[in-house]
């Protein structure tokens, strides 16, 4: 079965700095990969997804992620963060033709002024 590891539980950064949130997965078959964001007291919403095709995926709010099959990674990046990006970020993997999605433990991004 698939699994996801988010390497950093907390990432503090200053406003306008670049950020990378790391995600590694394990699976024996082809996968779909996702990043979700959860703002305080809200549900999760999709930032971006990789299903197939180009390994560089662009999402909402200026985020992007790169699928690296050899490294089994799907790191999330943003070149310049805003205070409003402060939230919990979840990486998730779904094996193709499988029924469920597995989530990482989440990374708390805190953007400081």
């Amino acid at each position, binding site marked *: 079965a698939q699994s996801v590891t988010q390497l950093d539980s907390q990432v503090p950064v200053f406003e306008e700095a670049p950020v990378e949130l790391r995600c590694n997965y394990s699976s024996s078959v082809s996968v*779909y990969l*996702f990043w*979700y964001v*959860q703002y305080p*007291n*809200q*549900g*999760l*919403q*999709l930032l971006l*997804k990789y*299903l197939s095709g180009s390994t560089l995926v662009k999402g909402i709010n200026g985020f992007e992620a790169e699928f690296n099959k050899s490294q089994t990674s799907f790191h999330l990046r943003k070149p310049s963060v805003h205070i409003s990006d402060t939230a*919990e970020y*979840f990486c*998730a993997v*779904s094996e*193709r*033709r*499988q*029924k*469920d*999605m*597995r*989530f990482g*433990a*989440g990374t*708390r991004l805190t953007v400081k002024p």
Partner: protein
Amino acid sequence: DTAVSQTPKYLVTQMGNDKSIKCEQNLGHDTMYWYKQDSKKFLKIMFSYNNKELIINETVPNRFSPKSPDKAHLNLHINSLELGDSAVYFCASSERQAGVPTGELFFGEGSRLTVL
């Protein structure tokens, strides 16, 4: 118009009580889920239904019973509540393309259950 809606948003109750959380989606999806998020924000799948049929049933105490009256609704009933049941419960739905789940989930806003 809310895509995935859950009620109630907050629920405070005593140990031993029975409670239900309701979920409805208006996206036309045929697969719905319940996830549990603990105090450390860890998300764990509990159940999944596809067209009213149970397709995922993770290791969850049998005090938890999902019910899907139709493909737009998936309710969660919990008997004999325990302190450890305190968490945020998320309902979600997903779509399929050519009969295969794409995996993208649409979440409700969550129901925060506190057991005293």
